[in-house]
């Protein structure tokens, strides 16, 4: 059911947006103490966004988050916390960030009214066109932010993990552009699945290292990147691609991705004069979801829906899950430096995950997202591989936009949400990436079917 916003709330909203506009396009959350934050102290609890330095030092979102890393890395994390604190308000830093997002990344991205999709589902559906960001996905927003931060902190080398190759590509782009030595770790299995993406990174001068350990996918690529960081911590910045990992990464990645939600807010107010009833994003680690949701967490009337990869089925074998739905069915654990929801066996061994979309194929999820799902602010849902594929074709045919398989999960939920009455009348779906990278996967699926 639709919750109407009162006129005064709307005016409040408008005046805040105007104020934000006056202050310039770029603002990182937590960097300003806006009136709304003062008026709404609950924000701290809801979003896990800690405005005080004391709270932030711990990097906890309820019971989730923290810093579970080898001692070697603790000083580096401390350095990163301090560096981020120092530069996130620095006018030079913000100017450079603004410049890169705009002229290199192609922001702002459109908020597109999907007429045909809207007709089909009986709601006004907008798509946030992150697929139009340079590189074809939202991943660049964060890569730009962290690379500039690394430069300001005096690092000369970037390392990153990648699953499908989107984050690796974004890192390769900023690495080439800003003159970093860049190394991307990618599971050997993923390299096979995404040969061209690996080549794309190499074209930009990045060394792609195949990870042969464990399951040879994203989780192992993160392990290997952490091992590299442990070894080269003095000159190297580990550019994590999602809202996962030890503090301050979940916060930093969220903040750099929040440009998505800030733009949506402004654009939807301009087009519709009110906030949407629901926001839908896919969630693997959760960076496009957190980036979209974060500026809305205090707007309780907006339903935030995170759609996970249900894979083949919501079941597990002894060693592996047939899905990647850690928010929906994962259990509390510690993975890659953070306490969060994890797919694991009864002894705590991490299960391999599965999804048709490599970008969602991960056994953990960002700690803040786990927190928001637990306390009910975020609704966690899932769709299967088949449903995502259906949505992939649907958007291609209805709107002439080929979505990434990741984003297809968010789109696939439209149908379920409409049936469940969760959709509301005004909806924004985060189209986090374009589908060109997935053509081969979809092609072989279709041929197999």
């Amino acid at each position: 059911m639709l919750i109407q916003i009162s006129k005064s709330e709307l005016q409040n909203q408008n005046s805040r947006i105007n104020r934000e506009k006056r202050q310039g396009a770029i603002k990182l959350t937590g960097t300003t103490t806006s009136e709304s934050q003062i008026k709404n102290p609950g924000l701290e609890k809801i979003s896990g966004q800690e405005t005080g330095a004391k709270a932030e030092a711990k990097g906890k979102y309820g019971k989730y988050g923290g810093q579970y890393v080898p001692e070697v890395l603790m000083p580096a994390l401390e350095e990163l916390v301090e560096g981020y604190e120092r530069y996130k308000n620095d006018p030079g830093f913000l100017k450079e960030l603004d410049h890169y997002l705009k002229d290199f990344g192609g922001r702002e991205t459109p908020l597109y009214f999907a007429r045909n999709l809207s007709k089909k589902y009986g709601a006004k559906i907008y798509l946030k066109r992150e697929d139009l960001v340079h590189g074809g996905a939202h991943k660049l927003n964060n890569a730009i932010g962290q690379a500039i931060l690394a430069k300001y902190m005096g690092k000369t080398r970037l390392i990153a993990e990648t699953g499908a190759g989107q984050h690796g590509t974004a890192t390769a782009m900023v690495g080439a552009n800003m003159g970093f030595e860049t190394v991307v770790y990618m599971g050997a299995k993923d390299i096979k699945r995404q040969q061209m993406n690996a080549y794309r990174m190499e074209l930009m001068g990045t060394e792609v290292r195949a990870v042969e350990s464990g399951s040879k996918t994203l989780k192992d690529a993160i392990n290997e990147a952490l091992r590299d960081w442990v070894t080269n911590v003095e000159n190297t910045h580990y550019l994590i691609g999602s809202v996962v990992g030890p503090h301050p990464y979940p916060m930093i990645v969220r903040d750099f991705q929040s440009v998505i939600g800030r733009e949506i807010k402004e654009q939807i107010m301009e087009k519709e004069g009110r906030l949407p009833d629901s926001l839908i994003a896919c969630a693997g680690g959760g960076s496009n979801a957190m980036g979209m949701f974060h500026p809305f967490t205090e707007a309780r009337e907006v339903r935030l829906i995170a759609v996970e990869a249900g894979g083949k089925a919501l079941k597990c074998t002894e060693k592996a899950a047939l899905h990647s739905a850690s928010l929906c069915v994962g259990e509390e654990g510690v993975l890659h430096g953070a306490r969060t929801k994890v797919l694991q066996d009864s002894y705590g061994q991490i299960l391999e995950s599965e999804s048709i979309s490599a970008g969602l194929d991960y056994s953990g999820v960002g700690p803040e997202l786990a927190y928001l799902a637990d306390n009910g602010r975020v609704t966690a849902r899932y769709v299967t591989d088949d449903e995502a594929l259906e949505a992939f074709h649907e958007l291609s045919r209805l709107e002439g936009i080929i979505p990434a398989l990741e984003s297809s999960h968010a789109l696939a939920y439209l149908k379920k949400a409409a049936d469940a009455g969760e959709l509301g009348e005004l909806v924004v779906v985060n189209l986090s990436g374009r589908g060109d990278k997935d053509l081969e996967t979809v092609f072989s699926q279709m041929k197999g079917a």
Partner: protein
Amino acid sequence: MSSKMEAGLRSGIGAGVKAETRISGISEKFAELKGRGEGALISYVMAGDPSPEATRDIVSALARGGTDIIELGLPFSDPVADGPTIQAAGQRALAAGMDTEHFFELVEGLDTGIVRIPLVCMTYFNLVFRYGIEKFVTGSAKAGLSGLIIPDLPVEEASELRESCEKHGLDLIFLIAPTTPGERVKKVLDRSSGFVYLVSRLGVTGTSSKVSGTTKELLARVETDIPKAVGFGVSNGSQAAEIRKAGADGVIVGSAFIKIIESGKNVNERLEALAKELKNGILEASRKGE
């Protein structure tokens, strides 16, 4: 039943002994060695690699070779602090069916001979967390372990486990790295018991050919009465001697043993021989150093 008692005696944790009167097997062992002017050889192997039965023989071989403290790895699927050698050992152990329950059973049944050898478990935090912190610690104590090393658990996140370890008379051993600044060293030492694990270099576990200046600097700047043991990259007697000479109370060796186990050839004889070589190196250095 008798092995259980031995396990209890070995670690200084006997049934019916009240927590406050328990003596850590580790502190005791270091004190005993110090009395003789000796340094400790701490040997690490992965429990259940390649099988639980093999681990029993391997531990005996290491004991015969003069090992003072044995670290047993409880394998984890995603060991971020470990290099390829120990990663592979963990994979083999997991494939052979090692899990937390079997680990405790194995430890309880170990016969380290007449020499009391404290046993320490090295694993990653998720296994402790998932099993239940209190349950894991009581299980460890019951099995006869003297301490725990959790390389992905910095002091900031360790308070609950530390309390539990204190309650049950286990040492929680923390790591200090070359990157750990002076202030932090103090913080870690404040929370350490048994011994403190100095990471010899930046990087993951594995063998290397020489002892770096980093190791010596680290030994020099970590000032404490708690025994200092150096690990990561030690693989032969002369390295062990050099580290002992630089002021270490103990030398930790893992990957070099695991490479022998991996080879599958004359494993127990070679393990014993390497342990002897390492221990001799430590002893030589001890004598010269006195």
